[in-house]
């Protein structure tokens, strides 16, 4: 089955191309079929391959498939090639599996929208690009997928193109992530020039060979890759695009947050962990960024009223956990959390989408209220998702993955303890903000009409994801709960083992923190609440600590000013001045042509006298 690997990214791509070429000629049903089934088939193939992979792992735990030689120039040979190893296998399954569920949901969610086919074309392309990103065997293929997801996020965030605000959000997403991408590209240049190859495995091998730990070049390279990762994964300082990206349709948000795009940064760092191991400074920074982001995003989520924005900040925060994990060397824990996060975040977004599609796209939680009874399917899904997000102990997947991370941090020495503390505090905030949303939106009085019914294409994905959000954590359990290590075993050939805390105290503290948050939310928001007062503090966190404001002042406005003022091209004024000089000279010399014969004679005489003078000088 391995040989079919190339079909996994190709099928969604094909679906996208068919939908683009058939724009305006296909029926809605055909478009839905092409859109969902292309990913569905890809998922089927992916799972089949995964089965084969697990049953009989290939030699070296990796299977490589070279499609064609991209180019071979000046000693640099780059292929378009795929590499399936446990890490990319996990990613591939998440992308195709969760992706398919989101597609299925979207076929119903998007019914009646203008540009239905276009939507699925972009969505398919998104999946294809993400698959290329994770399956690519070299940095350039990875980068192609990397940019591809950036493009698709742009296209999808701006899907409703008639509203300029959506266009702005889309461009913001693309440009902000492109800043990170550029850092990544420079990193690739460095790797290609210094390590002589762009093949990921080869480059990691060469790096370990030629760069001692802590060497400036390794550190530089790691930081440059980190730059790309923070951009795509919406971590500090390039996090500002993510909340605005909510401008896109909800399935897009689900896809961006759960299956594609934002996890790319985590994947990249995990993929190049060998490099980060050589650059401790960079690795500490990863952890620090993760901790800072998870707190910042958590506080910001508390100050949001828009259900999708709450979820957006929660994603930022959860990715922060993954970064934290990467920073403390808990590679497996990061991937574990990535996996469970994909389940419950997709679930949360889809259930939020399910809510809003019945509420005429109302997203303000204070205008919802009392939905628990009227939309039970959405409620239960959202509740399960929230519980997983808040790491409700024992019964949710999120609990186990978050515990793995915190345990890894606890075990990572004194600096790890600081990160652990941040993570624990973050767990408290998480419980608080997500259950704030749950209580306000689903309990209390109803504020908005509810209409319509769900079809199976909504219910099925919600159900499947709910189950996964509950049970998905069972593949990896800490020693205290039976010590299941399915995922770690799988990832063992590609990722170093995660250190684990021996004591159960941290585990208990962390569980307690989450519960405390949920409890506080219940206390504060059980009663129907009014929208919060706009205190300065609220406004500060509502604007996510004012990064947009800062960047606007520091970067955007100066550039806009320069572009506006410089639009007439200052340099051209130099040439205009030359032309002006010539014209002025013309006007001046022209006046000598007075038409008067005596003046002309004088000219003749003066010219002659000058000539005679020149002749007589010597």
């Amino acid at each position, binding site marked *: 089955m391995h040989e079919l690997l190339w079909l996994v990214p190709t099928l969604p791509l094909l679906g996208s191309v068919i939908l*683009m070429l058939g*724009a*305006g000629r296909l029926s809605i049903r055909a478009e839905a079929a092409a859109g969902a089934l292309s990913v569905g088939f890809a998922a089927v193939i992916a799972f089949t391959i995964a089965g084969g992979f697990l049953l009989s792992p290939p030699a070296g735990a990796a299977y490589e498939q070279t499609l*064609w*030689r*991209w*180019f*071979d*120039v*000046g*000693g*640099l040979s780059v292929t*378009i090639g795929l590499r399936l190893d446990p890490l990319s296998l996990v990613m591939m399954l998440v992308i195709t599996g969760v992706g398919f569920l989101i597609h299925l949901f979207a076929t119903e969610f998007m019914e009646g929208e203008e540009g239905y086919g276009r939507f699925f074309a972009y969505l398919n392309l998104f999946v294809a690009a993400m698959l290329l990103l994770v399956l690519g065997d070299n940095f*350039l293929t990875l*980068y*192609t997928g*990397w*940019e*591809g997801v950036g*493009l698709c996020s*742009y296209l999808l965030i*701006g899907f409703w*193109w*008639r*509203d*300029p605000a959506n*266009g*702005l959000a*889309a*461009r913001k997403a*693309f*440009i902000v992530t*492109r*800043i990170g*991408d*550029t850092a990544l*590209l*420079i990193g690739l*240049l*460095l790797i*290609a*020039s*210094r390590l*002589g190859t762009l093949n990921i495995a080869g480059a990691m091998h060469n790096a370990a060979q030629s760069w001692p730990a802590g060497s400036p070049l390794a550190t530089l390279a790691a930081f440059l890759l980190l730059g790309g990762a923070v951009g795509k994964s919406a971590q500090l300082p390039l996090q500002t695009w993510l909340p605005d990206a909510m401008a896109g349709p909800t399935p897009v948000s689900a896809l961006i947050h759960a299956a594609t795009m934002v996890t790319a940064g985590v994947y990249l760092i995990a993929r190049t962990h060998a490099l980060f191991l050589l650059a401790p400074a960079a690795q500490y920074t990863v952890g620090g960024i993760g901790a800072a982001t998870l707190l910042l995003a958590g506080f910001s989520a508390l100050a949001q009223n828009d259900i999708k924005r709450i979820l957006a900040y929660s994603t930022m925060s959860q990715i922060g956990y993954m970064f934290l994990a990467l920073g403390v060397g808990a590679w497996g824990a990061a991937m574990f959390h990535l996996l469970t996060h994909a389940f419950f975040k997709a679930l949360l977004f889809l259930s939020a989408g399910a809510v809003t599609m019945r509420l005429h796209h109302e997203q303000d939680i204070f205008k919802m209220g009392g939905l628990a009874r009227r939309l039970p399917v959405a409620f239960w899904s959202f509740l399960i998702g929230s519980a997983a997000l808040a790491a409700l102990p024992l019964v949710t997947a999120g609990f186990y993955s978050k515990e793995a991370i915190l345990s890894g941090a606890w075990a990572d020495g004194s600096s790890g303890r600081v990160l652990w503390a941040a993570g624990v505090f973050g767990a408290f905030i998480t419980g608080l903000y997500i259950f704030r949303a749950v209580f306000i939106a689903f309990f209390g009085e109803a504020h908005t009409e509810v209409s319509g019914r769900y079809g199976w294409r909504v219910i099925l994905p919600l159900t499947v994801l709910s189950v996964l959000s509950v049970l998905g954590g069972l593949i990896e359990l800490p020693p205290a709960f039976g010590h299941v290590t399915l995922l770690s075993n799988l990832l063992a050939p590609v990722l170093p083992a995660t250190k684990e805390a021996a004591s159960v105290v941290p585990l208990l503290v962390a569980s307690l923190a989450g519960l405390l948050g949920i409890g506080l939310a219940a206390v504060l928001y059980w009663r129907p609440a009014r929208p919060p007062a706009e205190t300065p503090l609220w406004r500060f966190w509502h604007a996510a600590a004012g990064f947009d404001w800062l960047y606007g002042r520091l970067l955007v406005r100066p*550039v806009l000013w*320069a*572009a*506006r*003022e*410089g*639009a007439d*091209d200052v*340099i*051209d004024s*130099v*040439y205009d001045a030359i032309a002006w000089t010539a014209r002025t000279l013309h006007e001046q010399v022209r006046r000598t042509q007075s038409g008067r014969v005596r003046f002309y004679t004088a000219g003749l005489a003066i010219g002659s006298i000058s000539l005679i003078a020149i002749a007589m000088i010597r």
Partner: protein
Amino acid sequence: MNMLLILLLLIPAIGGVLAWLSGARHPDWPRWIAIFALAADLLLTLPLIGRAVMPGQSAWITSIDLPWIPQLGISFELNLDGLSLVLILLTIVLGLVSVVISWSEITERVGLFHANLLWATTGVIGVFLALDLFLFFFFWELMLVPMYFLIALWGHEHRFYAAIKFVIFTQGSSLLMLVAILALVFIHQRATGHLTFDYLALLGTKMSSATAFWLMLGFFIAFAVKLPAVPFHTWLPDAHTEAPTAGSVLLAGVLLKTGAYGLLRFVVPLFPAAAHEFAPVAMTLGVAGILYGALLAFGQNDMKRMIAYSSVSHMGFVLLGVFAWNTLALQGVVVQMLAHGVSTGALFILVGALQERIHTRDMRLMGGLWGAMPRLSGFGMIFAIASLGLPGLGNFIGEFLILLGSFRASVPFTVVASLGLVAGAAYALLLVQRAFHGRTTAQPGSAKPFDLTARHIAVMGGLVLAIIGLGLYPQPVFDQVAPGLAALQHEGTPPGNTPMEGQP
């Protein structure tokens, strides 16, 4: 086989005369004549593609050398290597595209229009073939004249200003080049007693480093103007904006490439040491062009002007790559030229089509065109993202290889240059936003704008395939130009410097 190169020039030249004469009979005649002439040229060129990669083939695929002005050591010397071949193919293809997309746009003096188009093509092909410096200069100047007419006679509102500006810039700089050519020839004559304009003979002429510097500068300025490099770029926005669509396509797609070709073929190989000393300055100009062009593109309201400034930005990469002078960068330059020709040409075609429909290029008056013309907008989107350097499309390969090459030559320049990728995203997406997305504004002048016609769709489809092909499988291009570039590099590397190849 030797007549082939001459035919390559004669067919469009004579085709131009025929097109001119036939224009009086029926407006379609010149169009078909132009298509036949260019198609014939294309057919002549295609067999050469294989010959470039034949084993044992020297860098020169085919050549011809006839006496022309023997008294002055000038001969009619045409030589074709892979680099020329690739650029000639681009020229012919974009020439064909220009004819097709002008079908409905040009209705006045059709004969003369196509004559000029063909003559401009002749001049450009000549530039890519000529290896006698005087012959090169002859074609260099020759392509100026029909281009001037294309802009001045069929252009838009300020066409005369733009056309004259174009000619003055190019002519002024090329006279400097002529002076440099002559000085080089006389220096060579004094050293060897042999008066010749033969490029191959003039390679390796010994002179003092100060002299070499000034002569190199003479060549460099001429090519920098044509490229165009900051600060010599200001003719380009005007010329692009005012030219008819076909004129813009030819200008952006082909004429600018002659500047890059000149840098590759002449500046560095003829004055290796001086060029290498000058490289930091040239690379600064390249980087400045990348950023400055992008910034100005961002600030424009006129769509054509915006694309013109984006050309400045893209050509900045070319300048950077040329002066990095290693295989990676040079191959990147070649691909960048091709990709820029295709993507910018396509964008100009779209603007032309847009202007035909809504009678404006002002993006403040556009918006929401996706609703009325999804096909045009879709193609616009594709080429806008090609222009911002999305991997998988041709421009990325060019920019990546140039950056990779220049990284080996100079890290700081490369880092600053790569900021151009961010800036490129900013202006390209702004273009999409302002024209195709956003609120639908009332379209001035036209009741119901119609989408692209089949003719345009065919052309655009072809260009899309070309840009994707360049992006995903550029290796054939690399193979074509590799021997030629290797020969150039051999000449252009000053003694004492080892070529910067492979492992650092």
